[in-house]
């Protein structure tokens, strides 16, 4: 039996959609991220942010096929070696750390860790004058990406600035 749900690209919402056995609709969006271009002042293309969200707030019982489906999408995404990915775990219900751990567990078990580099960074950003939010971020790219060195260099500079802020 297939371990993941079938998903389709919805041309109206511009998201990859799938419906679980509990009839919950998930949408997965890739948005173009220009952070690396902005910081470096150079054109760095094929950087995307991944966003996974349910279409409503319904609480779903654990369903392993959801993460398998997301894994499948990420694996397909990296079939194009020039692609790179930014992923931030949401802190809904203060579960960002747990989500980050789950994502990390997937990566460690994945055969793709041989070819996909994942760099994690936990950063604090100010969301108001007195309030800071902790962000669990991951940046992933293919070892054969032609911008490999450039991506690493920009990321390390970015990381340096952010770590100064911690």
């Amino acid at each position, binding site marked *: 039996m297939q371990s993941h749900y079938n998903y389709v690209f919805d041309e109206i919402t511009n998201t990859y959609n799938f419906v679980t056995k509990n009839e919950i609709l998930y949408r997965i969006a890739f948005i173009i991220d220009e952070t690396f271009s902005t910081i470096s*002042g150079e054109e760095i293309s094929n950087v995307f942010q991944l966003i996974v969200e349910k279409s409503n707030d319904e609480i779903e019982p654990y369903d392993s096929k959801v993460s398998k489906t997301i894994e499948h999408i990420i694996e397909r995404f990296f079939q194009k070696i020039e692609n790179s990915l930014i992923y931030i775990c949401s802190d809904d219900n203060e579960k960002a750390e747990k989500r980050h751990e789950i994502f990390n567990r997937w990566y460690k078990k994945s055969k793709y860790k041989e070819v996909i580099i994942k760099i994690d960074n936990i950063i604090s950003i100010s969301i108001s004058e007195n309030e800071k939010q902790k962000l669990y971020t991951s940046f992933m790219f293919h070892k054969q990406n032609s911008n490999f060195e450039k991506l690493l260099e920009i990321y390390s500079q970015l990381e340096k600035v952010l770590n100064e802020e911690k």
Partner: protein
Amino acid sequence: MKKEVNKELVLKSVAKIVTDKEAVRSYIKGKTSIESLTTKGIKFAKPL
């Protein structure tokens, strides 16, 4: 590239990653319009 990175620019860029994500999540839940995302400069992609 070896040039000094503008700290303010980095912080602004990272803040934009976060706000873009929240805007898209809100859009997926039907609470934000696509026009609002376009105004923020958010561009969807179909990389698969």
